[in-house]
């Protein structure tokens, strides 16, 4: 009898442990400030040094697999900076505290109940928790990302031949992001009403150049109900007509780039579209910097306010020239539920502090071979445009999407502005696409 009791104890303990595992304010503190007790380090890694083909093996453990391969192949060299704090907005942190332990996973992936605002699962993820990956995915969905709303204007994308460096196409966009629900900072808080469809967040994109894409617009509406398909609309300037996009178009090359709509911001899909697996916690190099301290590009169009864009270098000028820093990350894998998906697996190195998914992503093709590496560099908001000071987000500043198979890349240079005035809700209605021009 006693033996039997001991045998069942772990299972029982696991069951009764749920209340014991409830997040605490200390978990919140740890979640938003994982460097409270000091910055991470790795033997031989020092700010100011460069990781390149010659010394990459020494730092393999702190590099994402895709980034490691790119450096090893001599595609680019990584400039190392010091690990810095990327403090999240106080309003978001306060919302996390105020709503601690309210969010609960439902019976099936994609179901969440009780969520109000802030980071839904601030506790440290546990590899033994089979749904830890899903919790991190929810943390991302309801993450601070671009805050309650922001605009990237302009946003230059360049399609490049990685072998020759030839720029095949340059597109000038505006990207707008707006959270309709679970807002924590910008009025109206907590949500924009009325909102009968239950739109959680929307992205509105408008292309200004080149001529063949001028006035092309994209609207993506993601719903609070994660099991509801996104609505997406494309306005083709040359047709002057709005087309509703079929679901499959989110996984197609977006306007011929190396990105699919699902790649936006690291992952732009539903939680329920993927099977999420938390693989563990590590310290990994991510591209994070202070924009104003970088050597910036001199070959980009001038901005009236003097803003300059992040420069690109490396093979084919496919790699942003910012500094990388050692960060605490959660390694997360996402495998598409849809077997017809062009991707077999995505690997994310989720920054533990800011919760973003786009620092050094690996994207694997259907055969399971590494297809693309997506690296979005972030600037501290206080070291960027004056309007971003105090925004409490990591400002996406430059991206490299490198297709290792076709030796092609798409690069992005952002001018991100956290300015609520530039995101009226009407901009995110489908009528806005067809009504303007």
């Amino acid at each position, binding site marked *: 009898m006693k033996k039997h009791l001991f045998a069942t104890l772990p299972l029982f303990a696991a069951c009764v442990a749920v209340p014991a595992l409830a997040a605490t304010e200390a978990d919140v503190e740890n979640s938003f400030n994982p460097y409270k007790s000091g910055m991470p380090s790795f033997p031989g890694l020092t700010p100011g040094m460069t990781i390149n083909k010659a010394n990459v093996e020494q730092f393999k453990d702190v590099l994402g697999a895709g980034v490691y391969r790119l450096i090893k192949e001599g595609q680019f060299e990584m400039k190392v900076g010091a690990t810095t704090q990327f403090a999240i907005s106080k309003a978001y942190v306060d919302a996390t505290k105020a709503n601690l332990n309210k969010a609960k996973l439902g019976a099936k992936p994609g179901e969440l109940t009780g969520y109000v605002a802030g980071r839904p699962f601030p506790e440290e993820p546990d590899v033994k928790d089979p749904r830890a990956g899903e919790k991190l995915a929810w943390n991302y969905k309801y993450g601070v990302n671009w805050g309650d709303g922001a605009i990237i204007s302009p946003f230059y994308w360049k*399609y490049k031949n990685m072998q020759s460096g030839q*720029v*095949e*196409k*340059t597109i000038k966009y505006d990207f707008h992001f707006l959270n309709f629900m679970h807002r924590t900072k910008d009025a109206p808080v907590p949500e924009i*009403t*009325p*909102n*009968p*469809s239950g*739109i959680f967040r929307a992205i509105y994109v408008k292309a200004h*150049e*080149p*001529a*063949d894409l*001028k006035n092309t617009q994209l609207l993506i509406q993601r719903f609070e109900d994660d099991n*509801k*398909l996104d*609505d997406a*609309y494309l306005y083709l300037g*040359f*047709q*002057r*007509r*709005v*087309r*509703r*996009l*079929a*679901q*499959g*178009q989110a*996984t*197609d*090359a977006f*306007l*011929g*780039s*190396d990105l699919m709509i699902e790649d936006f911001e690291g992952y732009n899909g539903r939680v329920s579209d993927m099977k999420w697996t938390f693989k563990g916690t590590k310290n990994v190099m991510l591209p994070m910097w202070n924009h104003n301290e970088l050597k910036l590009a001199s070959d980009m169009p001038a901005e009236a306010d003097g803003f300059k864009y992040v420069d690109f270098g490396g093979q084919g000028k496919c790699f942003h020239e910012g500094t990388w820093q050692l960060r605490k990350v959660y390694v997360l894998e996402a495998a598409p539920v849809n077997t*017809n998906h*062009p991707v077999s697996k995505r690997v994310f190195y989720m920054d533990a502090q800011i919760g973003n998914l786009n620092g050094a992503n690996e994207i694997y*093709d259907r055969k399971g071979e590494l*297809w693309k590496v997506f690296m979005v560099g972030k600037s501290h908001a206080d070291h960027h445009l004056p309007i971003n000071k105090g925004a409490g987000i990591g400002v996406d500043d430059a991206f490299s999407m490198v*297709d290792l198979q*076709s030796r*092609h890349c*798409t690069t992005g240079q952002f001018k991100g502005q956290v300015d609520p005035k530039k995101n*009226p*809700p*009407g901009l995110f*209605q*489908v*009528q806005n696409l*067809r*009504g*303007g*021009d």
Partner: protein
Amino acid sequence: METKHENGWRLSLIAAALSASFAGPAWSIDLPSLGDDNSPWQVDVTYENHTVRRQNVGLAKFRNTLQAEFDKRAADGWGIHGIMRGTWDGVYRMNSSEYGKDAGGAIALENRFDGSQAGLPPPAYNPQYQTPTINYGGGFPIYGAGTGDLRNEGLRVLGDRWHPTAGGVAFGVPVRPCDVDKRGCRDFGGYGDLSMNELEMPEFNKRLDFIRELYVKKTYDLDEGKQFFLKVGKQQVVWGRTDLFRVLDVINPVDYSRNNIYDELSDIRIPMWMIQGEYRMGASETMQDRNIQVVWNFDQFRANNLGQCGSPNVILDAGCFFRGMANLWDNGGTVANFAGGVLTTDFGPHQIGIRKVHLPDWSIGNTQLGAKYEGVTAGGLSFSLNALTYRSQLPSLRSINGKGTVNPFTGGTTGNTGVAGEGPPVAGLIAFDMHFPRVNLIGGSMDFQVPEAGAAVRVEAAYTSGEEFSNTARPGLYSKNNVFRAVIGIDRPTFIPFISESSATLISAQLFYQHIFDHEYFKMPLGPVGMPDWENNFIGTLLVKGFLKNGTLSPQVIFAHDFQARATAIAPQVEWNLSNDLKITIGANYKLADGRSRWNFDDCRSCNPYAPFTQVDPSQAVGQSWGLGGMEPLGRFRAGPIGAAFREDDIFIKLNYKF
């Protein structure tokens, strides 16, 4: 001298446009700032060369287009947008024997009379009228024949481009530009009376079409996040959700002369001066989005440009029918296989043909008004409800019967026996005035996803009243019929590994349906009588478009099939973006038609307008057709735009460059 003067004027206009376009960057400095918003003028200048080689014709297009698109944010939230476009198509000079001053020539018309057919006037049995063909102007003369301009030069036989006469009717059609040959020239609504300069530089006309778009716009912010959007000026207003088919997208007329149905609609809609106001209410407790739009088209009426006869793109070959008929009215002429259905006959002026074109003048009553409610339901269904009252952009030919026509048997001008007022009234006479009737439309559209199929679906439908159709069962040879049109389209991106393993191939299919209410179609002793348009018809389209090399190389093929006409168009093309600013497109356009035997229809040779002279049978009433028919003139409505373009197989290369 006058021509030279006009040349100079037009060349100076296009030169001004060209220099303005090339001077884009300089404009940014020189143009005045309109207000205290310091946003500079944004000017994009593009050049396009579109060269087409057509089977049996040679060069069919050498079109060079310069377009400048400009925008500015002005004071107080106003925005200004404009597009200037200038085109020069060199085909009229480079292939002048087909489309320019040397086009056409002397013609002979088919004559099926061989002396064996009874019932014709005795002089018809002269051997000169028993040859298989008869030269233009040499047909059997009836009253008044030979008094008009019957020069046998610069002519084509009606329909010879797409079918043989084959026992039907045909007549000569002048095909040279109207400054070279004025015969049959009428303004049918922006075409039909154009000189060579006007054909080769179509935007430089009295309607100032080189100002392609010019409007101001402003969004007024109202309470509760609502907005009022106002756009005033020359503009396109696009309704509906489908491609190619204009079910709801009927506010702007269309210029088919530019490239038939094969250019993007945004390039061939004819912008109109309009006011568009849109009350954007946003979301409510039950709807995610609500908008009400009112459009007032206060511009003077414009018809669809169907293409002037003698130019490369004459959709349905209608422009040639109209010009030939107008020439018949003015000058008379030779009509193949007419008398007795076999004898090639010469008519005199004012006996048959098109007399007048009644283009609506500008008046408040002739303006056009539309309203639309556009919304998105809470469940994500995007839809619109539309209503429009407008003037038909397609012409209707109403028989004028005895009003002003000359009786070819007696010379009388009203009745049918020679003296005004005598005899039974004339009916079913192939003498017409052209009208553009008022049409009222109600309709709607919607789109939604079908997750199970991985597809997006769009639907559009409209019901119209007031449209007029050819109808040989009616004394006026037309009838007003209500029409229902609908189209359903499905977009499905699909991975097709042999095309691309990384990019989906877009498969887009559409099915268009048209039903004509109270359709009339009767079997008569010699053939069908009534409406040539099909009571029910479907047209299907299929687009397969791949994206290779990061979208810089895009092969595609479009299939279009008219089910009743049994005609198919296949249009493969490859688009190659060499750089941000340079794009080359190479393609072809082939038509197949195995339903030509189905296109023949009553041509009114047996309509009996002047009983008893024209009676086929003693029991035949005045204006009652016995159904003798052929391909002309009504077969074009059965063949549709694909069938009537049979033998217009093209290959083309298009170059686009942005400065």
